[in-house]
């Protein structure tokens, strides 16, 4: 019996589609563990805001991830929480900074000033970083094997469909938002 042409075609098409949509993303990304577990919600429920640890100065300048010294302000001693104990033992006591894997990390030639966004345009942190403050566990750091950047830069969907506005930090995402606000400017504003 001869196979009908559409069936022969489908024999190639279906596995290729499956490989492209299901297998390829698995091969493309790998997961790395963060150095410590971290419960954002436990902190924000206690009344802390983003800026209490990720300080944004009054003039809008962003001080980045908190230094271990800042963590040590509350967690100077071990207790009954394994995560806090690991923080104290591995970082607070030896005076080392925690080498967090940063989901929002951009190439070195990208200059992102928080001041005009946070202070100038009053954008909430969650607009770009998502509802991080509600997470109870450290989000897995999923890294693209080719580009070396976090999957969060591309967004969770490989097709980039159905994304929430904070999912994705590609240049096109910056441009889209700037365009919507009539704030398009020169290449060297963001690229050094």
């Amino acid at each position, binding site marked *: *019996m*001869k*196979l009908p*042409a559409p069936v*022969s*075609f*489908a*024999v*190639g*098409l*279906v*596995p*290729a*589609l499956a*490989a*492209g*949509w299901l297998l*390829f*993303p698995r091969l*493309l990304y790998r997961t790395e563990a963060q150095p410590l577990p971290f419960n954002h919600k436990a902190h924000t429920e206690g009344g802390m805001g983003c800026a209490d640890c990720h300080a944004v*100065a009054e*003039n809008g*300048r962003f001080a*980045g991830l908190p*230094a271990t010294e800042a963590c040590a302000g509350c967690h100077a001693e071990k207790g009954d929480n394994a995560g806090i104990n690991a923080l104290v033992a591995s970082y607070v006591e030896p005076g*080392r*900074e925690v*080498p967090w894997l940063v989901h929002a990390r951009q*190439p*070195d030639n990208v*200059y992102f000033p928080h001041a005009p966004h946070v202070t*100038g345009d009053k954008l909430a942190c969650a607009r770009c970083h998502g509802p991080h403050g509600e997470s109870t566990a450290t989000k897995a750091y999923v890294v*693209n094997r*080719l*580009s*070396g*950047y976090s999957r969060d830069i591309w967004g969770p969907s*490989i*097709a980039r469909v159905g994304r929430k506005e904070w999912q994705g930090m590609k240049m096109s995402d910056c441009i889209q938002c700037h365009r919507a606000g009539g704030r398009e*400017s*020169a290449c*060297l*504003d963001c690229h*050094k």
Partner: protein
Amino acid sequence: MKLELSRRDLFLAGGGAVAGIALSPVPWKLLDDLSIWTQQPPTPTPRPAGPLAFRFTSCALCPASCGLKARCFGAQPVGFAAVPGHPASDGGLCPLGLTAHHLAKHPLRANHPERVSGGKRERIDRAAATAALSAALAACGRDPKRTFAVVDGRPGRSLSRTYRALAAATGGLYVTPPAAGAALSLEALAKRFDGGALALGVDFSKARRVVSFGTPVLTDAGTPGLLARLRAESRRRPAAERIEVIQVEATRGRSAALADRYIPIAPGTEAAFALGLAHVLLDEKLADAAFLEARTTGLADFAALSARFAPALVEQKTGVGAGVVTALARDLAANRPALVLGGDPTAGPLSGETEAAIAALNLLLGAPFGALPVRSEAPRETDGDAKLAAATSLDALPDGSVGFLLLDATVAEGMVPWARLERALAADALVVSFSPFRAGLGEKATLLIPGPAPLEESIELEGPADAPFATLAFAPALLSPPKDLALPEEILREAAEAAGLSLPAPAAGARSAALLAARRGRLYDPAAASFVAVGDVASPDALGELFARGACWVDDATPEPKGRFALLKDGEAPRLLETALGAPTALPASLASLPRVAVSAAPPSLLLTKLTRETALFSAPAAAIPTAARA
């Protein structure tokens, strides 16, 4: 039933697989990721070893001396951020500073001495470079017609002391670049003061109106973005408290494009315009009468002079409508504190007479001791018994007289025009540069002895001369210089010794000792984001430690001195009148074809301006390499 598979089926299945892949994310996702992958360096740069740490220093790339917070892995800085609250920059940083750690790896970086002869660059060793220096020093000592001259862009460092000693030992000249930008106007104003030496700064935070005749106040001048930031903040306050910037220039430069008002003026007629404003202020009794009464002399003579500059005449001379002149004068009077700066407009530098008219305008507005506060210099060690040459200006270099010209790495081409230096050179003169780059003045040298690149050496940094208060930092090095790099101080001492010249020993620690002895001012510790009074610093070692952590000293407020400013100096009126009544000058050919009213339609980016003005290093390497070297 047997399934028959033909070649046709294989082709169809292959076609289906290709279509399937094409309809999956593989092609475009791979394209995107591979394009990012190709931007990685050819051999992947391993993440520098060592824990993440933050270190502080100051940027030495221009006089603004901004504070830098370096993100480092181990000893390697990988990124910079500004330091909020830093006395010199208050959280400002320009793109050049943000990328300062890359400059050491710039394609135009030189790591070894190079001699340029017949248009060819030839690498030489340290001994040959030292021998060339000592021979040139000895020749200058023997032949009075071949002067030794050294140009220093950052006077006051310990290396500057060696330059001065060398100039004194050879009977040569120690040259410092002339004041530029706002400092020119401040100097012109201070020279009119009869109460002794006076230094003034600019405090934009105290001004509500800023008029600039050329200084790019919103872009390149002073602390990056400071005035723009203050203006943006003021816009959130009631209209009466807002800061406005008015740029009066022949061409609409970047600062003018960002200004609240740009007044295009015929080039060379700035003095007439300033006198027109003065006329309206005096005629309508809008000037600061209390300040004029208490702090100035010569009001009657100046009033008589400015009376000739009615707005109608100013309109004829400058091309600016009489109504605009009157409205601006009234606006300045109604929105004091106001200050006026001259500087170096693109169309050509302002004359001394124009700066005199601008100084008088500042006096009428009562700007000195308010928006133009008095400041003092950072404490400095005394010369003691050492024989050191005094600083002199470029005018002291007669044409064709310099047999050996030494250019410090801090001298940028924008500070001292090469054409002026070239005129001073004798035939066969040796031009030595300590620049770490084959660019700018480093490219003009016949002997390039590259010194440390930015961030490769600890350097004493005094803030800009037009800052409202003196600052001083001993910016610690963050990078290691290449092995075998000849340090200017060492190589000069070796050459002087070989030439039989004796130089005083380096005054290590003398500046810190002077600072401690003065017991003036406070030290900003960027790591702690707090100040320590100098009086509370226990010892020179403790001070050294603070500076090694990136601390910056800032002076206390300086009390107002007694004395008066002359609105007109002796014999100045006729020259001022002649300048103000003179015909407009022609625009330089490079600007003549530009439209007078709008060089660029859209306001330029604030960040771009410093980048384009302050360095030749950002020109494409191929364009910046001298033709001879490319050949």
